């Protein structure tokens, strides 16, 4: 059963990922991204990370990708990008080599490593009937416990994001607009 879920989910993710890379139209690319996100969300669930699965769907699919689509529409850059031609001749073969090499190296690392983590099996308490929010509590404990400082820092990060967009997207004075 696990296997089936994994295979299907990873298929979703991979197909989506490939889609992002190969779909000519940005909008389609964004849609493929959504597919991947869902696939990963499924795997999260399979791994007992229900909260993250939810956040994944909400934040990513719900917010980020939508944001992408907004921008695409706003700028009207939804016309297809011509992927048939590649000005940098070396780029694609090189990219292929790099991609394959990385897969190889990372897989190699994962498979050759005799680190304890590779052997240890299932672990975290997944939600049960008596405590449906176990996973949530654990995350909460971690975030507000060990990682409380990191949590604080995220506030600064968001502040940066806000101010940054203000600086970047603010309309320029009139005479500038003329240009």
């Amino acid at each position, binding site marked *: *059963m696990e296997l089936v879920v994994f295979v299907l989910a990873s298929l979703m993710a*991979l197909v989506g990922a490939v889609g992002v890379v190969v779909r000519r139209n940005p909008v389609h690319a964004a849609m493929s991204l959504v597919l991947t996100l869902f696939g990963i969300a499924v795997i*999260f669930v399979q791994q007992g990370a229900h909260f993250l699965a939810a956040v994944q769907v909400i934040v990513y699919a719900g917010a980020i990708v939508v944001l992408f689509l907004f921008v695409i529409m706003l700028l009207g850059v939804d016309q297809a990008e011509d992927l048939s031609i590649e000005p940098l001749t070396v780029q694609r073969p090189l990219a292929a080599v790099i991609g394959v090499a990385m897969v190889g190296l990372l897989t190699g690392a994962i498979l050759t490593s005799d680190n304890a983590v590779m052997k240890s099996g299932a*672990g975290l308490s997944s939600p049960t009937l008596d405590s449906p929010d176990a*996973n949530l509590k654990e995350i909460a404990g971690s975030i507000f416990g*060990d*990682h409380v400082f*990191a949590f604080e820092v995220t506030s600064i990060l968001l502040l940066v994001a806000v101010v940054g967009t203000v600086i970047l*997207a603010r309309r320029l004075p009139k005479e500038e607009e003329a240009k």
Partner: protein
Amino acid sequence: MSLLAVVEPTTSWFLVLSAVLFAIGTVGVLVRRNPLVMFMCIELMLNAVNLSLVTFGRARADVNGQSTVFFVLVVAAAEVVVGLGIIVSIMRRRTAASADDLSVLKG
């Protein structure tokens, strides 16, 4: 059916999957010319990392992996906002700018 019953996806399966996703993301950054799409590919890479984190967390029976993913999500969000901001501001000047057009600075 028996196969399905027997074979359990182990940690390494997930890890390899995330590695593959990561690599695809990398390739995407290299081959796509539309900044937006390049950016999506970066998101893809981040997700691949998330997958690894969760997997490790599970394998280690340690929740910190998941909480880290949470932070990554925040970072991703922030990045998107700023990134799109920059892209917007530059595309305001000249629409449909592909990444290759941005090469005034070189040499």
